[in-house]
């Protein structure tokens, strides 16, 4: 995180993982890919463990399964959009065009 970003807006969203697979493999890949489209720094926090939301390897180490509560923290010029988009992705059960999805 560079110094200029410290003064940037910061947005936190709490989400619960609802897909069966949790944040692994394909879902994690979708998450990273989306996160990397934003300029903001993204952190994901689980039970006090904070990892880089743009690093797949770090996301994996959370071992976040179904039912896990996560905080998505975005800091940067597009923090709001990033937090919203990533939060929505998780809450949708990572439903993209190929999965049937279980939206509420």
């Amino acid at each position, binding site marked *: 995180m560079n110094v200029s970003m410290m003064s940037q807006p910061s947005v936190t969203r709490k989400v619960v993982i609802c897909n069966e697979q949790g944040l692994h493999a394909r879902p994690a890949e979708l998450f990273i890919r989306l996160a990397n489209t934003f300029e903001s720094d993204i952190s994901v926090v689980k039970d006090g463990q904070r990892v880089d939301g743009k*690093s797949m390897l770090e996301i994996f*180490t959370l071992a976040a399964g179904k039912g896990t509560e996560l905080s998505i923290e975005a800091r940067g010029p597009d923090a709001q959009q990033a937090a919203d988009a990533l939060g929505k992705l998780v809450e949708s059960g990572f439903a993209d065009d190929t999965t049937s999805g279980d939206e509420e």
Partner: protein
Amino acid sequence: MQKLQGIPVSPGVAIGEALVMGSEGFRIPRRFVERDAVEAELERFEKAVQASKEEILRNREQVREKLGDEYAAIFDAHLQMLLDRRLHDEVVEMIRDRHYSPEYAVSRVLRRYAKVFESLENSHLAERANDIVDIERRLLRNLLGRRREEIGQLTSPVLVLAHNLTPSETAALDPRFVRGFVTEVGGAGSHTAIVAGALEIPAVVGMGPFLREVSGGDLVIIDGDRGEVILQPDEATLEHYQRAVEANRSLAEQLAHLRDVSAETADGVRIELFGNIEFPHEVQHCLDRGADGVGLYRTEFLYMGTEGEPDEQVHFEAYRRVVEAMGDRPVVIRTFDLGADKVATSWRREDERNPFLGLRSIRMALRNLELFRTQLRAILRVSALGNVRIMFPLISTVIELRQAKMVLADVMEDLEESHIDFDRQIPVGMMVEVPSAVMMIDHFMPELDFVSVGTNDLVQYTLAVDRDNKEVASLYNAADPAVLKLIDMAVQSARRFKKPINVCGQMSSSTMFTMLLLGLGLRSLSVIPAAIPEIKRVCRSVSIPQCEEVAARALTLENARDVETLLKEELKKALPEPEAA
């Protein structure tokens, strides 16, 4: 620092850089780079990432065409991991700040992730660990490129760490640079153990999975006495082991002068010390230590790692090297002891539930007479050239011994008919290593010229413990009074029948047991060549009555621990100087 436990199969201590043999045989050539090479090394890393990325993209397209999008998705995940910014930053930092080579840095970082994933209780992540290993390989392949060194082309000393070492892999290694072996699988009879013994370097096997925790170039300590392997030791541990290596070296120097003196007890009783060997070149190790002969020449190596079975001439040439080198000193050739843990490639039987109780050793020989006869012919032919004795392994009944002797007599007749020279009086002996043979030993003696107690199998069969099974290996103990009583019975019988008896097997190579064995009445021991000087020193420091008292007391004890305590105390009293660590 990490301390891991395995099965010790070859003694000694080695400290050095790890050479990790993966399934593709990569080795990481060096750990550090020059300070002024850092920029170039960083560039090399970036290029390797780029090349790997292109490979993954190509693979993805190929898979997509053949199998569809769903199967190609795994490559997207690989790509994300390869291009992961944390991974990238960590590797770059290691190269820039710590001057690690890109190969070493990549391996360290990726293996750390693989280890984290494996430790998480989640089966999906265990699979991710495999992906990480895959990426590591890919990056290493691209980093090493044409500079990728073949395993055999070693230029500096290494400790070889592998899942399993096959005969062809060990054959490719340059023994001048190999200082020790560690393998994930294997037991006391494994190929690794045998080769390590022959090279006289420490080895630990049966570690279980651990290779992912090591990177090539890591500092590793192998303690072949305790079966410990220490990864990235801390200063204090390193110092401790450096002292141990130094102590071993100076002890060896002190003992070198014993080469030309005989193993005679303080009260003037001559003890014969023979060497155990597997490979013909080890005969030199015996000569260097002033061995009285070769007490156990194992012949299984002839059947290992070769396609098909060795012919008579292959046998003959190997035996001739040993027999000629030993001159008039005896060479005891043991007929093949295959099966169970020692199985030639073409022989493996999948349906044996209990291989140590199955078709092995002499049983296999008596079922495969042509194979057996081929070996016997070669042994008999070489008997014309020196002092050769023949020994049958794993005899458990008198009938079995007679059958083996009948085959031998038959081969002798053939040779006579063909006017081929051999020693008509060749001494014939057997290994005493099955409890039933000890119980019936008086019935065997009249039909034998000598016997040799094989303690490795005797302990295993007496205590019903598979020493290669980590769960129960701690129950395997040659000091168990039950074992001592069986050895005692065998020695008493040999005395009554006035037949020579010796002890081969690992028990005789340990100084802890020397006084006990002499006290039980043994006057001949066959040991690993490297142990001859130490055993000789013990022999020269003790008297027979002293040893007899130790043996008598040991036979009254009720468990192995008490026996060990007694033997260690008595050895200490007999040899006041500190033992090498």
